[in-house]
Structure formats: structure tokens, C-alpha cells
């Protein structure tokens, strides 16, 4: 755990924050498990053996690109096309890693190298909210979110799906497919603690939709993720007396909003 310098009074205790993290994880676990089963089924339908399906979920560990790859393999595309598209689809992880980097820079490089492999949409969202709630980086919280919340459910469900998932209901029928976008929206709202964050989020949504319609939804997400924060930076600070990140030392402890009382999803 990287302790904060000047952790703020009123910040939740570590135990309370982890309890909240576990609560936040419940829906993510259900979503990862539901779609892990669907991936297993999709892989089998496209000719994957159980070992191949599990290799995808363990080594690639990126749902969207796994579904795309399974479909492309089934449709007879060659490996180069699959690999190039995978690189493009997964390039959004650059943003996640860059945003988490300042929080995790005190961890040993070996640990950061392992942390990188389990960095996904869900683990990024859960851990960033958790860190900001606390005011410091909690390495156990990161592992809990990434491994317990996503990696294990996704991989166990892949095995279930590829070996016999036809007995499990379609996630769409029980509404589980809505969990992922709803969790992303809910966690975005939790992170929108000031005008700059709100403007960045709203601008990103607009940019994502416009670029998504004009080019491709995945390109829209990337464009929104890159340009939304630029729009947020253009917003002047509301109260010059309250220091913002510009004025704070480049330290993860000071990396989130100064007033933690309304930060994120704090209990």
C-alpha cells in the first residue's frame, strides 16, 4: 500500500473502503461471469478447443478483442488481421495505464509489470474509484478488483462456457448485458466530482458518439477518452483559493480532488 502524505480527515478507513470496493465489485463479477460463459460458447462455436479458449482468456484477457477474434477465426480471417485489430481495439489500455501510473509508481517494477496484465476496463474503473476514495493507492485493493472482480470470474466462466455453457441462460435474457455499460456510467458519475470532471465526461460522450457514428464506435471511445480531458482542462477553476492538481505536488497522495467529502462513491 502506498500511503498518502497528508491523507485527509474524513477519508474512509481502509477497511471501510475495501468493503465498499467489494460491494462495487458484485455487479462486475456477475457481468464478467455472464460474458465469460458467452465467450466460452462463442469460442466453441467457432472451433476453439477448451485449451485454446482458456489460453485466450488467460493471455489476452480483453473481452471485446476476444469476441472479435473468435468471430474472425470462425469467418476464416487470417492471423495477421486478427492481431492488428486486437492491437487497435486494446490500445485504449494506454489511457488506463497512464492514469493509474502516478498512483502505482512507488510499487516495484515487477509488481507493476504483473499489474499491467490484469488492467481492464473494469479493474481500471474499480481501482481508480477506490484509490480516489481513499486518497492513496491500495495495492491489495487493486489486486482484489483485478483478480477477484474480473480475472477469476472471466476465466472460470470461460471454462464453464466452453465445456457446457448451453445450460446457462443468455445474459441478455436476465439483463446481465446491461451491467457493463451501467457500471461504466455509474463509475464515471462517481469520478465526476468537479466541474472539470463533468465537462470532461460530457465532452467525451459527445465526441465518442460523433466519431463513433462517423468512423467506428471503438474509435469513438478512443477519441472521447483522449479529447474529453482536454475539454475539461479548458474549464476555469471555480474557487481559486482551493488548490487543484496544477498546484499540488506531483504525488499520488495529492492526485485527487482536495475535498474528499464528496469524492466518488464514498460511503
Amino acid at each position, binding site marked *: 500500500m502506498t500511503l498518502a502524505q497528508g491523507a485527509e480527515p474524513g477519508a474512509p478507513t481502509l477497511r471501510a473502503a475495501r468493503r465498499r470496493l467489494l460491494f462495487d465489485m458484485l455487479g462486475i463479477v456477475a457481468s464478467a461471469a455472464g460474458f465469460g460463459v458467452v465467450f466460452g460458447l462463442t469460442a466453441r462455436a467457432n472451433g476453439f*478447443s477448451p485449451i485454446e479458449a482458456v489460453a485466450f482468456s488467460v493471455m489476452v484477457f480483453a473481452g471485446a478483442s476476444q469476441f472479435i477474434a473468435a468471430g474472425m477465426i470462425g469467418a476464416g480471417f487470417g492471423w495477421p488481421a486478427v492481431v492488428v485489430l486486437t492491437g487497435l481495439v486494446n490500445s485504449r489500455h494506454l489511457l488506463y495505464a497512464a492514469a493509474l501510473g502516478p498512483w502505482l509508481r512507488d510499487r516495484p517494477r515487477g509488481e507493476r509489470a504483473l499489474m499491467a496484465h490484469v488492467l481492464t476496463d473494469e479493474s481500471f474503473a474499480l481501482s481508480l474509484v477506490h484509490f480516489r476514495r481513499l486518497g492513496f493507492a491500495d495495492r491489495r485493493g487493486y489486486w482484489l478488483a483485478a483478480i477477484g472482480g474480473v480475472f477469476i470470474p472471466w476465466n472460470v466462466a470461460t471454462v464453464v462456457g466452453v465445456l457446457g455453457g448451453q445450460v446457462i441462460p443468455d445474459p441478455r*435474457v436476465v439483463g446481465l448485458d446491461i451491467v457493463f455499460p451501467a457500471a461504466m456510467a455509474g463509475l464515471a458519475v462517481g469520478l465526476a466530482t468537479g466541474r472539470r470532471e463533468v465537462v470532461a465526461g460530457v465532452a467525451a460522450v459527445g465526441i*465518442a458518439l460523433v466519431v463513433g457514428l462517423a468512423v467506428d464506435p471503438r474509435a469513438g471511445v478512443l477519441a472521447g477518452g483522449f479529447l474529453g480531458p482536454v475539454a475539461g482542462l479548458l474549464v476555469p477553476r471555480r474557487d481559486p483559493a482551493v488548490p487543484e492538481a496544477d498546484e499540488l505536488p506531483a504525488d499520488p497522495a495529492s492526485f485527487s480532488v482536495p475535498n474528499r467529502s464528496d469524492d466518488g*462513491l464514498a460511503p
Partner: protein
Amino acid sequence: MNVGLVGLALLMFAVTYPSRAIPLLAPAFERLPPRALEYLRLVGPAVLGAIAASQVLLTTGAGGHPTFHVGIDAVAVLACAALVAWRRNLFLGLLVAVVVAAVARALGAG
């Protein structure tokens, strides 16, 4: 048992891992100027909002061209976001979103 696609998984790992690891491991990312840190602080709400919006408001039709669509998925996600803003409770928001989507589909509205 066929294991030929394990090689493809390795190649996919090889193109995915750098985007996950470089910003976490490269020394240049360890001492960023405050302005860059402020930018990165805004990445979270931006990229998560963009993902949610593109998932529920854009659909790809048979022709492969994305179209704008407001359906029950968007309503369910909006309900979740509103509940999180109001109650600060993600689990409650997710629960309501799932119930809204499942009930609407069961009634033929999805």
C-alpha cells in the same frame, strides 16, 4: 486436443500487453508535469462515459454502419447513473438497471 490457436493468443498478448504496461513501467511516465497529471485525472470520467455511451447509444446494423439508437438499454444505464449520483451506491444502480432491462425485455419493450 487442438492447441494451434494458443499461438494466436500469444500474438494477441504481444500486441495488447505494451499498451497496458508501457505507461506503468516507462520512467518518462513516472515524473509527469502537474498539467499532465491533471489531464490524466480527467481520463477516468471521460473514457468510462465514452464507453457507456457508445455501448448503449450506438448500434451496428446489418450493413456494418453504426447508427444512433435510444432504447431500453440507454434508459437502464441512465437510471443507474442517476441513482449513483443520488445515492452514491453503485450496486443499487446496477440492480435497478438490470431489473429495468430484464422487465422491459420480458414485456417486449427491449
